[in-house]
């Protein structure tokens, strides 16, 4: 099954690319903080000064 081997070859290479990506991510401290980013992404760059807007973020403190 030559096709099988080609597929395995490519799949494996893709998997390896991701493995390296994973190692890099750990290495570069991507996962040092596994909570705050989920809050950070909620902040808008737009500065809205109408403070009565009820877009209050309620963060779950169930972590930790």
């Amino acid at each position, binding site marked *: 099954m030559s096709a099988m081997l080609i597929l395995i070859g490519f799949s494996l290479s893709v998997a390896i690319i991701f493995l390296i990506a994973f190692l890099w991510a750990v290495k570069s401290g991507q996962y040092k903080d596994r*909570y705050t980013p989920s809050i950070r992404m909620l902040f808008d760059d737009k500065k809205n000064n109408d403070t009565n807007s009820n877009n209050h973020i309620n963060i779950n403190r169930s972590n930790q």
Partner: protein
Amino acid sequence: MPSNTIATTEKAICYHCGLECPTDDIRINDKFFCCNGCKTVYEMLDSNDLCNYYSLEETPGISKLNEVKRNFDFLDDSDLKNKLIDFTDGKVTTITFDIPQMHCSSCVWILENLYKFNKGITFSEVDFLKKTLSVKFIEEKTSLQKIVELLDSLGYLPNFNLDEKKEDKVKEEYKKLYYKIGIAGFSFGNVMLLSFPDYLSFTDKVTMEMQNTFNWISIFLSLPVFLYSASEYYISAFKGLKNKIVNIDVPITLGIFVLFFRSLYEIFVIGSVGYLDSMTALVFLLLTGKIFQNKTYEAMNFERNYKSYFPIAVSIMKEGKETTIPVDKLEVGQRIVVKNNELIPADSILISERANIDYSFVTGESQPVEVINGEMIYAGGKEIGEAIEVETVKEVSQSYLTQLWNSKAFDKKYESKIDTTVNFVSKYFTAIILTIASSAFIYWVSTDLKLAFNAFTAVLIIACPCALALSTPFTLGNTQRIFGRNKFYVKNTTVIEKLSNITSIVFDKTGTITETAKANIQFVGNEISLEEQSMIKTLVRNSSHPLSLRIASLLRLGSKQKLDSYEEVSGQGIQGLINNRIVKIGSHSFTSGTLYKSNNSDTSTKVHISIDDRQLGYYQIKNVYRGGLKKIVDSLKEKYKLFILSGDNAGEKDNLLEFFPDADHLYFNQSPHDKLNFIENLNKKEKILMIGDGLNDAGALVKSDVGISISEDINNFSPACDGILDAKSFKYLKDFIRFSITSKKIIITSFIISFIYNLVGISFAIQGTLSPVISAILMPISSISIVVFTTVSTNMIAKKRGFL
């Protein structure tokens, strides 16, 4: 204490911090503030249009009410600075602050927008769980001091302490673990994939042709696992054997090696497929166990030394002007100013007239002592009342208190003496396996060498104690999480095992079984009129004496009376003239009377009252014991020996006897050293759980098998200990201990289960017939079922006992 003030009108809520505003005059158009501090912060944010702060969450601010002006001159001191910062190249500096006040998304947002306030800040990043803020700033443009002042002005005053940071090392360890598990997982998945043809269609000609290629790829894939991912097991096994300990990693290492080399043999010599999938799976599973076990409470620190309690800086008088210097720079003979509730950093002589020093922190003595000019004040004491001036006579490191920390208690490596159940078992386990394996070998060797060899290796493969190794981390890991949910935070999982083995429990008194700063105070005597009460209040409010403060706090009515004269007789009491009546408050003799003479047995603190020399009675101040103490003690006393170590005088003895049966287990006037020695002696015959709170227990906590420190708020400092117990959960103490025992039982049960698996496998193995499929199926199944069993059982029992 619940305040029984009658809320007359709907009070405005501070727009910044959400506190009730005492008045409505501090406001910016429709926004009200509780204090000018909050108002200022609002103005700061407004001027930098950062008011998003308020739209992210309601009233996110930290109240600035009753806040003191702080002085951060000491941060200019380069030595100190270098201790605090993470990294600097002279131009750019990185520093990480602990900021326990951060509590919401607004905090994150504002702290990560610091650069908008201070152009010198190039980067600021929050770790919300750790409650840390790492800031990078340019030295020319700003300074550490400026940044700290900024943070303080926003209400996020950092916690400084000089504990050496070994965090980075831990980080690296974690990363390694993640690398390893990543690689193992990747190889496991792919090797398993490539093993499928062998499992599923042995006859298929097509697959046979490809098998060869697949084997090659599998070997390539499993090499990193064998060489890198599994390495730590080899090391630990080797270390163990060097110390004559056969720990669990020995059979594991054995298993991995046999798996790998047998596979190579199968592939190259026999030309069939090996056990590489089992090998990679094994390593992968083991590592997941490790990950699971390594739960850490990021916001907490279990290895604090006395430095974290000490002020990092002290105020000194320099040419009449007050400034601050780092505490290390403090020299003998220097004059320092200690304000209300500040700690005395080094043994010194009192220069001011009088001082009230609260030593509860150091000795456990709960009543503040009055010190007169020229007397000695010991480090660790806390000034209560107005600021005092003292002159140091010893260096910080030489102080009475810090000697405790130089005691050998702290440099002993007590990790070495952990005898965990699993290591105990693995000793025999390994022996048994080796016996079986070799006997199988001997049995076959006469008939068929190859078969004998197969049988030998097969036994080692199948008996590889994956399940055995996983049961402990998963059980204890779960238990640790369950404890954490119930506000009992243990340093690591071995603590739980130790906790299950204790035989006696030692309590510290003040702050541990009594509630700190909450002594109950009651009036003994005949009825006193409201008018008299207000007179008393008027008088006590003029004194900073701790007792006066307490009485004042008890009398909640206003003190609108006019005080015509006021006199404070040191060590005696206070007296004053209020609308022509002489009010005296103080010792029995001071209030000159014959009534309410105390019998000697009763040593609880009393403050007598007399008006126009007519004795009204006295305020009696007793310690308050934690809720449910009686129940806990009763439940514990059959099973364990209970002891009390108190820094106090025997005043509370009678009260204590209500809880603790035998008087000769109560020890009073215990200095920190006494406590340490007591534990050391007791340790010879008992396994000890020590429960304490303050610095004064630190030695004892370290020396005991399990040292737990009680804390009213877990983000606060606690001394070096194995676990931090939130005061609210004190009443569950018994349940925690019981549960730790249960989880030990669960571990043992799961051992039995995994042994059964091994028996099944070995029955195949000894006949030398072990197909890769069987091992590949049996091994993960056993491991996974163990994981499921431990997880489910711990959680179910926890639910039953109301932990979840």
